[in-house]
């Protein structure tokens, strides 16, 4: 009689899950299908009325819309860089030992996190001068630069929270050990805590970047020629209502193609960081 493990002692089997690729392939297919369907429908309308085909028009406008989308990407990268630069000291102030500094940091973080981005963007747009006078030098402040600052402020507050969370997730003994080895507070933070915390801060930081990228379309409301503005301009130039659906889906697809891989990567990184802890 062959030895068979008792059924009761078998390791629990994980619940069967659908292959990971399935959902995203399915989704991408649906999106592209919607784009094609919209274009085909517009094409059909065009044929009835004898005007140029929708496909040709879509192809004609695609480069312009994509260039607008690239402005969104550029603004998001700059705002993220500036926001991270500002957010790091802000996050450090949240765990400062001096109470006034901590309170100041807390107030700033709470304020910039809880105010709508669009309101903040309006505020910066109207508040900052359109040109700077430095001695005899007149420096124009372009609108996109103001937008970068307006977006960087809420980003910095969110980065500050990420920094605080990451540093607090490092176990307490690390601090005590550094203390007992006579590291100064600054040395402890810069050489021991931050290097370890950075790995844990990366996934939420990337998540924030994806959110920021999507928020960059807000700059169209304050009159910057970004992807959304140019999409609208293209639709207005053609004055063909049936083109609206494919045009907007094209823009949605651009953003999706940019943000979805970031989301996947964030998830993968999160899993890796989790295993290592």
């Amino acid at each position: 009689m062959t030895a068979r493990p008792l059924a009761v002692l078998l390791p629990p089997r994980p619940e069967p899950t659908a292959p990971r690729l399935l959902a995203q392939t399915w989704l991408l297919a649906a999106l592209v299908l919607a784009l094609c369907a919209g274009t085909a429908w517009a094409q059909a309308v065009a044929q009835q009325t004898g005007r140029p085909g929708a496909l040709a028009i879509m192809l004609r406008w695609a480069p312009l819309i994509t260039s607008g989308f690239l402005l969104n990407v550029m603004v998001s990268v700059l705002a993220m860089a500036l926001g991270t630069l500002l957010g790091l000291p802000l996050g450090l102030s949240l765990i400062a030992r001096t109470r006034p500094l901590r309170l100041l940091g807390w107030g700033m973080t709470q304020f910039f996190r809880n105010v709508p981005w669009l309101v903040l963007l309006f505020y910066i747009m109207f508040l900052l001068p359109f040109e700077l006078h430095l001695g005899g030098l007149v420096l124009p402040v372009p609108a996109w630069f103001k937008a970068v600052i307006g977006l960087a402020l809420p980003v910095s507050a969110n980065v500050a929270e990420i920094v605080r969370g990451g540093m607090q997730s490092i176990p307490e003994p690390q601090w005590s050990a550094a203390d007992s080895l006579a590291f100064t507070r600054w040395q402890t933070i810069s050489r021991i805590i931050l290097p370890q915390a950075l790995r844990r801060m990366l996934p939420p930081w990337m998540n924030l970047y994806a959110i920021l990228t999507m928020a960059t379309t807000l700059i169209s409301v304050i009159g910057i020629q970004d992807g959304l503005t140019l999409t609208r301009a293209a639709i207005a130039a053609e004055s063909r209502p049936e083109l609206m659906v494919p045009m907007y889906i094209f823009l949605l697809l651009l953003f999706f193609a940019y943000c979805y891989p970031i989301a996947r990567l964030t998830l993968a990184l999160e899993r890796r960081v989790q295993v290592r802890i």
Partner: protein
Amino acid sequence: MTGPVVDLFTWINSRTGLNFSVFTDTYDGERFITGLITTVELSVLSMVLSVLLGLAGLWMLGAGGFWRALARGYVQLFRNTPPLVQLSFFYFALGGVLPTLTDSRGAQVPAVSGFGWAVLSFSLFAGAFNVEIFRSGVEAVPSAMIEAADSLGYTRLQLYRHVLVPLGLRICLPSLTNNMVNLVKTTTLAYAIGVPELLYAAAQIWSEVMNVREMMDLLLVVYIVLVALLVWLMERWERALRVPGYTP
């Protein structure tokens, strides 16, 4: 319009030149209040709908097969595209395609108003995040609970109703609060499609009275107060729901 508030802001105006016309001018005040009410309505309706969508998505994720793929697709699509483009798509593209209705006076009106599209769009956007939030809460429920419910012969609906949702909701309430705060902030996007909410009302006032700085400051304060109120309510709810002695 009289009263101590009017006197105070009239005095501020005469001393500093800061013109808070919302408090001194009846017309501006009414517009601002209407905007505030619209923002609150927009927020509350979207919150309720987004939570319902989140629950529906949670149910679909558990159903497997086609429904699971549909829920996942919905979540990924709405989480990874800009809410403003979603709103534009709904309002301009879909709203343009839908047939118009004729109202009682014979005028052509769109089938769904700007307000309606805004509620729909924000609910779908926040709902996608809610699905993920509820999923994380339900996943944190100890599997022994589910096995216990299984062994007691609970159906899937009973399992969700009596075990998973009550326990999971308590776990994910902080994340839900976060998302609801985000939703309130997102309602400012309705400005872009001309829904007369708070930002829109403020913009109308400052372009007429030319008191941009004052209206901006007021806007920031009002939104901070709105969000603080929401956070306070949610934290009260969180405390009220707490099961004494139970830590998941």
